[in-house]
């Protein structure tokens, strides 16, 4: 009997999720023993038509990373959904939209203009923008269209499980693949991470006093902080309280505050809004003018509240 099939695909992605697959190191041998990798654009020269040739549900599990912004990505996501029994959204982009999601704070036209016309190092005197169809040398060429907004994977296809993180923790990649191959009974929408937020497993939480308040915001480039003390207790933004744990505090151990890449805790609809609520609630002021001033000192509130999760937030994009 042939081994079950596994596939991996990348959408709008930086390649970091592929690296984390490589980082499973010797575990790849275990996986190799249990299954065949049949499609993996970064590593194998398998064509789209080969994927189309699979029967429906022939692939046991497909890991898709990257967010969706191009026609090609949407097409492949839908194709792989048909061909796979289980789809796992791998990495923050597929899970919650990722950093690319911040592009949703600008209109599509603004993005294209910036990239193709306004960036100082671009030479585009005729102001040419990419088109879906164009004629060149007598032939018609097609390019995948660029969507209005960035979307997470489950906003395009149904997703069975999620491996969060930017990049994801290799241990969860192994766990997820083995779980599916072992037919483990997991609830639909299961997230391979901890249920509680990062503070639970953070080694700095004991240094956080019970009456912690924020007096003003200090940013990472402005000063040298105490590495043995909780960031929030030192007036620094750390999204740990609003972010799922499971990353084994890689950033905290690297003396940097959490930026929220594992996404919100379950039951939280909007990670950025919830974090804003928690942060604001502990600001040490009840004076309207002073609060306005403090709010004004944040250069990009949406940016750090929704760094990874804007497409899956409540508003998803610029609305007005």
């Amino acid at each position, binding site marked *: 009997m042939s081994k079950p099939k596994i596939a991996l695909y990348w959408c709008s992605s930086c390649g970091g999720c592929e690296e984390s697959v490589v980082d499973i190191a010797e575990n790849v041998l275990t996986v190799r023993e249990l299954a065949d990798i049949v499609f993996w654009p970064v590593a194998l020269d398998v064509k789209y038509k080969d994927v189309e040739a699979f029967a429906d549900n022939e692939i046991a599990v497909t890991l898709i990373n990257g967010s969706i912004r191009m026609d090609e990505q949407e097409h492949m996501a839908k194709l792989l959904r048909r061909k796979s029994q289980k789809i796992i959204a791998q990495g923050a982009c597929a899970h919650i939209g990722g950093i690319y999601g911040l592009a949703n704070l600008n209109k599509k036209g603004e993005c294209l203009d910036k990239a193709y016309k306004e960036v100082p190092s671009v030479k585009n005197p005729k102001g040419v923008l990419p088109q879906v169809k164009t004629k060149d040398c007598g032939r018609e060429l097609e390019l995948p269209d660029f969507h209005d907004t960035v979307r997470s994977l489950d906003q395009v296809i149904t997703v069975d499980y999620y491996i969060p993180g930017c990049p994801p923790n290799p241990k969860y990649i192994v766990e997820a693949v083995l779980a599916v191959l072992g037919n483990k009974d997991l609830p639909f929408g299961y997230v391979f991470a901890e*249920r*509680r*937020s*990062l*503070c*639970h497993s953070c080694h700095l*939480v004991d240094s*956080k*006093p*019970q*009456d*912690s*308040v924020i007096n003003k915001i200090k940013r990472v480039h402005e000063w040298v902080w105490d590495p043995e003390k909780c960031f929030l207790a030192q007036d620094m933004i750390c999204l*740990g*309280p*609003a972010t799922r*744990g499971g990353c084994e505090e890689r950033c905290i151990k690297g003396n940097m505050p959490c930026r929220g890449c594992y996404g919100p*805790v*379950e*039951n*939280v*609809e909007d990670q950025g809004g*919830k*974090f804003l*609520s*928690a942060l604001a*609630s*502990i600001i040490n002021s009840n004076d309207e003018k002073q609060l306005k001033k403090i709010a004004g000192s944040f250069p990009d509130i949406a940016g750090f509240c929704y760094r990874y999760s804007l497409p899956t937030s409540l508003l998803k994009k610029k609305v007005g």
Partner: protein
Amino acid sequence: MAERVGVYICECGPNIKEAVDVGELTIYAQGLESVVLAKPFNLLCSASGQELLSKDIKEHGLTRVVIAACSPKEHEATFEKVLKNAGLNPFLLQVANIREQCAWTIKDKRAATQKAKAMIKAAVNRVIHHEPLEAKEIDCQTDVLVVGSGVAGLSAALTLAQKNRKVYLVEKLPWIGGQVARYEKVFPTLECASCVTAPVLDEVLHHGHTDLMSNSEVEGLTGFYGNFIVKVRKKARLVDLRACIGCGACFEACPVKVKNEFNENMDERHAIYIPFAGALPAVAAIDRKNCLRFKGQVCEACLKACPFAAINYDEKDQLVELKVGAIVLAVGFDLFDARKAPQYSYGKAENIMTAFEFERMLNSTGPTAGKILMKNKKPPKTIAFIHCVGSRVKKFNEHCSGVCCSYLLKFAHMAKEKLPKATVCEFYSDLCLPGKEAQEFCDKVTGKKGIELLHMSGADSIKITVKNNKAFIQYADVSGKNKNKTVDMVVLAPAMQGVKDSKELAKLFDVSLGKAGFFVEENNQLAPVSTTTKGVFIAGCCAGPKDIPASVAQGQAAAGCILLRLVPGEKLTISPRVAVVDSELCSGCKTCLNLCPFKAITYDEKEKQCVVNEVLCRGCGTCVAACPSAAIKARHFTNKQISAEIKGLLE
């Protein structure tokens, strides 16, 4: 299993019927998902309306009810009872306010109907997510701690004791009665103060349910409403309460003499003493600060002099732990220190005194046996009574103490009775004479010859200096003219303030401290004796300046509040609309800890989690909104319920 929602639209007579299309609303409601029946009714709150509701719940197996009618503030409780009696959990109800917030405010029938539809949809959406809730019951102590034995504390203690509650009355002095025990007469009736208080004091000393701990102080407090644990230090009196009869043989023998603080340092007492004749309990106490034995010297004078072997030098302080359900703070007041206002020259001249000093002077048990005498032992020919010392001025205290005008008039009256030939004048800027009898009392007193009312332009438009051993008073009268007067004796009425250690007491009992050291009540209008700390009540002058009847009333009120809630044999019911932490989601991030003004959230060091005390939680939801993990749930106001409501309003 799908919910079975019943929607009832009340016509409220013509109020709703004529403002919205009830028929259209009924059809609309009927068509909503999960709604199994929708009915209009003329007056749902009526007996027949309630009957219909009850019948339908049982007959149609309704699992949720929506009532579109008047404001939930009117009848939500009424309909909750109906649900309960019909066997449905009362929290499975949602009221849509289509009267006060729709029918009565929108003239256009079309627009009103549209809004009512949205409100009904929202209510149906929300009620589906309601959960059955049970009011929790906890065991509670019914014993009560009363701190302070002034008239407020005594009133509270007796009211409670008379309904068979055990009352621990803790008084820091060795004698009870508070300030009123030191007065001679009380206004406006001019009755003798001790005649008024004697029966009360006697009852407290002998009532089977009152456990008087005089010479004692509260040192520690833990726990919460219904279950407080109080640590009390019973300081050693060194005199046996049962053996001593107050004969005074010991004081005469004592070689030590110190200033008698009970007589405002106007005379002296011994290191073993009873502060004034008539102080209760009539048992001596040894002042360890001044007794020679406690300074390392040998002395047994009082022991040898006592005919009843009542002295016990070996008595030690006792630390006791009391379990009580509620606490009444009735610690009284102190006067503003007039030395802080040098314009009055208090402390710089012999015959300028405060109201407390004058009270003791008037009292037959006081330092002058009731005679008004200057320091040179001669009676004064002229006395000035100064109103508003340290009162009604931004610099010291902005408030008016409300009783000084009345007692200064009392002083004027009593001064004239004792010294008919003396001239008495009252320096005032406004007269505060509230109540049924004060104005009449004032007219009576000032109608007498030899009592002058001098109207100043402002509360502190006055300066007193000493000239030739007399008090030289310069003041601006109400027309702005500068005037002066020379008098033999000056009596100052300083502002009433909270007791000197009110800051420490506020911290110990977890009550808020307001201006001038007074404790803050829960609500200025409707909850004057409770505080935001459930189970801790305030009564009397510690809650704000007031006269004796008002202090008594507050003591009784606090007792009343406690009597009705802490009943022997009954459990304490706690509202279920509180916050609850899901321990599987709480990460111990500590965001919520500092946000609760009722200290209902604590951090469990072992589990590294936050826990909400359901007894202390008031259900405001502030911590719920702040929790970055959405690990805290606000029962009956959950995120799911409110989100569903928002969606319904906008569809």
